[in-house]
């Protein structure tokens, strides 16, 4: 059969590339080698969904000759390979991963991404040092706060102070750098942010403690300074991790373009990188392969799964002359295609550009903590300055005491509670939701979620399960079902998969012929059997008005049997849509699917506004229109066609079954076959935002009480320290109320 010869091409052609030394290796340019001759290659692996994949991939590679390292990073889905030998071996290794059923593409780490991991390492070091220091200083402070000079003796106290200083001063210098750098950067631009009072507070608390220590005073505040750094670094680190997750999404998309295509040069085939494809080239696409660039079909008849790009649930039949979009998948039979546009100009590249544009729009979001800092910092600085001037000008106390009072004001307003108000709630909220199967990729996603007033839903794979299921199984006899399943077992067509799924039991051993664009044929007990489209084997007299998903089973001599399918809704879809409406959200359904399918779904769920036939650009235009109208939009989707909107929306969600790109672009990913987690997360987000605002109010109330006392000079440094820690504790305790509600 011609089909077998062509569809086996991917592995053949790579074997040829690896054995034929005269032919240069396709993937060699992606390999980096070190002085010892060790070759290293990083691959982005698509299709890794469960931990068992780690073992499957690693063990199949690790046993190879000269293999030094084969390690899959499960968090980032990147596979690092290191081997001794030539760079050309890369092709063989990639073929091996591909033969296991994964798509592997060489991954060129963007410079931005590499510096991301360096910065993560820097923050972790700062955090580790601050953690060490705060633990040890607390050990000493515990003794200092619980006793007095009579009990422990003056010498012991000064000894404790000295040790605290020896730990704290290097720690502040080392772990404070993320804040000092940021504060310095904004100050040199004549602006201010939250890091300015943090830096000032930490430095002043340390400086004043040193001053006090040398004067043999009773109290020092090294512990406050170091603990403050430690807590704030935790928040900073979590924030940062969320951010670099988001940045990875674009990188993964780009690596999709780093794959290869088989082009036909006269009579010879040649493997080239997708990015080298030019208009007019002729390429071969095997079964199960992605269409490398926008193209038209030259030869062959097949079915194309367009769901990654358009969201259309039913595969599209194509024949000679039809046009194809890049990124769609050829599922039935091999095709010969003519490239219509170079890969950089094709649809996938458009989607990437849209995502980049959308990402820039997102950067304009100002987090509530930063907004608070903007109002808070000038007030604190003015109050401290006013205190200093007031005491210098209108009293006869020595300047040291005036300065000390001003510093007390700064310390007592030190944004400990304010700095904790947001991160504590977000970290708790994110952690609890994660245990319930909702993964939130950034802390401020909760904040953005709480502000949402409109939600755009994708249909296929989001509201529905994204895979057709047999709906009229009860009308079909067991014998027919068994026969149909035996035929269907040989095809990757989604409807065949659905039949195979609906049937349990032994199958007939049949020799199947796949007729591209029509269906499957076989000989069973001496008669011809066909399973396929209505036009091919359905009743000839029936009218073609019915747009339902169907295939027909025809046996010579008997009436054809109809198999009806539907993409079933997630069981709690209706309930969740009503929950959205109860929360006062406008719900919009935007799908790339056929109008009849979309309207039926919208009607059964009671969604008033729906749009069908939406291309990625249409969905993005809808989003822009809503945003221009002042709406805060949440997008829930799972496909490539949703990716730009997922990135551009104020906040976005994707089911764990969605494409890698969609899951990477989304702010939250939920697992399981249910849709309700989205609504539950929204409710949790609103409650946590409520807690954040409460926390701010608590911090402000504390300041309103404490600052006038401090300005008047009534607050001793001990009282300031106690007040400071208790305000932080109150804020943390308030955040824990989240546990009762999520």
């Amino acid at each position, binding site marked *: 059969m011609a089909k077998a010869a062509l569809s086996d091409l991917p592995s053949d052609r790579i074997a040829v590339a690896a054995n034929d030394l005269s032919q240069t290796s396709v993937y060699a340019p992606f390999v980096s080698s070190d002085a010892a001759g060790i070759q290293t290659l990083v691959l982005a692996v698509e299709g890794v969904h469960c*931990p068992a994949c*780690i073992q499957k991939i690693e063990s199949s590679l690790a046993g190879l000759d000269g293999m030094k390292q084969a390690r899959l*990073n499960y*968090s980032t889905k990147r596979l690092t390979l290191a081997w001794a030998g030539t760079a050309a071996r890369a092709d063989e290794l990639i073929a091996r991963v591909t033969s296991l059923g994964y798509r592997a593409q060489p991954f060129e780490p963007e410079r931005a991404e590499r510096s991301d991991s360096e910065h993560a390492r820097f923050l972790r*070091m700062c955090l580790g040092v601050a953690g060490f220091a705060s633990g*040890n200083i607390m050990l000493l402070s515990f003794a200092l706060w619980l006793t007095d000079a009579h009990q*422990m003796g003056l010498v*012991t106290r000064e000894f404790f102070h000295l040790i605290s200083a020896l730990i704290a001063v290097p720690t502040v210098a080392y772990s404070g750098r993320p804040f000092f750098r940021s504060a310095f950067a904004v100050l040199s631009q004549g602006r201010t942010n939250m890091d300015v009072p943090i830096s000032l507070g930490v430095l002043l608390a340390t400086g004043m403690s040193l001053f006090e220590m040398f004067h043999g005073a009773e109290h020092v505040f090294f512990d406050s300074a170091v603990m403050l750094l430690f807590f704030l670094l935790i928040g900073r680190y979590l924030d940062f991790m969320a951010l670099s997750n988001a940045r990875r999404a674009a990188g993964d998309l780009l690596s999709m373009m780093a794959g290869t295509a088989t082009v036909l040069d006269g009579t010879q085939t040649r493997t080239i990188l997708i990015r080298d494809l030019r208009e007019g080239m002729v390429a071969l696409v095997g079964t199960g392969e992605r269409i490398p660039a926008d193209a038209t079909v030259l030869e062959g008849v097949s079915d194309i799964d367009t769901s990654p790009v358009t969201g259309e649930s039913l595969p599209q039949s194509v024949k000679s002359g039809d046009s194809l979009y890049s990124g769609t998948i050829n599922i039935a039979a091999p095709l010969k295609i003519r490239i219509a546009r170079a890969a950089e100009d094709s649809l996938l590249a458009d989607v990437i550009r849209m995502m980049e544009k959308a990402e820039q729009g997102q950067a304009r979001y100002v987090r509530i903590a930063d907004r608070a800092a903007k109002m808070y910092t000038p007030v604190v600085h003015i109050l401290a300055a006013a205190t200093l001037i007031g005491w210098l000008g209108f009293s006869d106390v020595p300047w040291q005491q005036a300065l000390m009072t001003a510093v007390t004001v700064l310390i007592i307003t030190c944004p400990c509670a304010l700095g904790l108000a947001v991160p504590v709630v977000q970290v708790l909220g994110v952690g609890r939701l994660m245990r319930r199967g909702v993964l939130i990729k950034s802390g401020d996603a909760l904040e953005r979620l709480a502000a949402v007033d409109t939600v755009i839903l994708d249909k296929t794979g989001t509201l529905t399960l994204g895979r057709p299921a047999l709906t009229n199984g009860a009308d079909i006899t067991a014998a027919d079902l068994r026969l149909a399943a035996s035929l269907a077992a040989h095809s990757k067509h989604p409807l065949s998969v659905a039949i195979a799924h609906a049937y349990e039991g032994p199958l007939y051993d049949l020799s199947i012929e796949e007729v591209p664009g029509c269906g499957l044929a076989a000989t069973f007990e001496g008669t011809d059997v066909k399973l396929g489209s209505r036009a091919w084997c359905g009743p000839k007299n029936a009218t073609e008005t019915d747009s339902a998903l169907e295939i027909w089973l025809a046996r010579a001599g008997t009436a054809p049997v109809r198999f009806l399918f539907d993409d079933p809704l997630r069981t709690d879809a209706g309930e969740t849509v009503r929950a959205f409406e109860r929360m006062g959200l406008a719900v919009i359904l935007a799908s790339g699917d056929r109008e009849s399918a979309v309207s039926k779904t919208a009607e059964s769920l009671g969604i008033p506004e729906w749009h069908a036939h939406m291309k990625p650009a249409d969905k993005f235009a809808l989003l822009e229109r809503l945003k221009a109208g002042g709406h805060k939009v949440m997008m829930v989707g799972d496909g490539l066609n949703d990716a730009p909107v997922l990135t551009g929306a104020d906040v976005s969600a994707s089911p764990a079954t969605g494409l890698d790109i969609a899951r990477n672009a989304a702010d939250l990913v939920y697992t399981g076959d249910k849709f309700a987690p989205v609504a539950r997360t929204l409710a949790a987000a609103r409650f946590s935002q409520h807690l954040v605002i409460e926390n701010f109010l608590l911090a402000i109330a504390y300041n309103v009480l404490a600052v006038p006392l401090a300005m008047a000079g009534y607050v001793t440094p001990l009282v300031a320290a106690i007040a400071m820690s208790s305000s932080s504790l109150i804020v943390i305790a308030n955040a824990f109320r989240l546990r009762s509600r999520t």
Partner: protein
Amino acid sequence: MSILLYLIPIALFLGLCWLGVFVWSLRTGQYDDLEGAANRILFDDEMPPQA
């Protein structure tokens, strides 16, 4: 109180040990993949022969 002369250095030493272990774990890339390690422990050392 002279006991403090021993105890405080011991406490600091233990703390430094912890910091050393942390720095080591950081340098060896143990924070690069937080999800994979939790699952790797469940794997057998050798793959059973394929059926």
